[in-house]
């Protein structure tokens, strides 16, 4: 059981890295793009905008914590 727990923790750490909010934000942004594209709208801008915001927020949070 402990080994399974350790493996799951390793996978979580491997995917989320130093800031889990980046992984969560990427998943949300991809979901939002997918939902918005169903209406036939131009949705290419959603992901770059989300990525820029995620990166800026993440490095700013790191700066504040130091």
């Amino acid at each position, binding site marked *: 059981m402990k080994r399974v727990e350790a493996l799951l923790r390793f996978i979580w750490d*491997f*995917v989320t*890295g*130093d*800031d889990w909010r*980046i*992984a969560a934000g*990427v*998943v949300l942004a*991809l*979901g939002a*793009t*997918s939902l918005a*594209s*169903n209406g036939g709208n*131009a*949705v*290419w801008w*959603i*992901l*770059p905008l989300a*990525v*820029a915001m*995620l*990166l*800026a927020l*993440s*490095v*700013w949070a*790191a*700066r504040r914590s*130091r």
Partner: protein
Amino acid sequence: MSGPGFGLAISVFLACAVEAVEALTIVLAVGTTRSWRSAFIGVGAATAVLAVVTLALGPALTALPLSALRVVVGGLLLIFGLQWLRKAILRASGLKALHDEEAAFEHETAAARAAGRVDRSFDAYSFAISFKGVLLEGLEVVFIVLTFGANQHRIPLAAVAAAVALLVVVAAGIAVRAPLARVPENALKFGVGVMLTSFGIFWGAEGAGAHWPGGDAALLAIIPATLAFALMLVAALRGPRTSARDEDRATEAVRA
């Protein structure tokens, strides 16, 4: 070679080179201090595990429908790319210490010496540290090779780029017989982070149903825009004022 193919080869080569430099430092430290034989067995075992992971995940990824594949690949590239870029930005702006291979080598060497008596037949410490180091550094490379390669149906090209990087780093390590401290690791990580993030944005959005203005040519705008934004963040983090001079300083810091 096409533009995306060239981007694939360069990104995989640089990512693999950076990780290989870090793994080399660990193997050199336990090999020179304790047991080369056990360290090499650890490297071989980790390589075998990485090969199994590649063989298991590769066909699974390529079996996905194109749009699902692009969402998965784009998402993974974005998650890994943003992690690399975040770390490189924090290092370039002075908020995180630069990775120092000589310091890492000294740290690993001291830990290896403190680990007690060396078993001449099989040194478990050398094996475990080499195995763990190569596996952890290699796992990210495997994901990059698989995601880039699967999406363009060019896993062999990605694998060759990774193998060439590995050979170059190992040859350099054998030649200097010391950690490769002069490799500009942060600049490489910055570059790889920009490439992974850019391709992740492009493929992720396409997979989720977006259509890029200009089609594939949009990448020619996404890559420089990502680089410019990352440099702007470095300049902004380094001081309250952002100016052309700060941008120049940020570029120099990334190169350091």
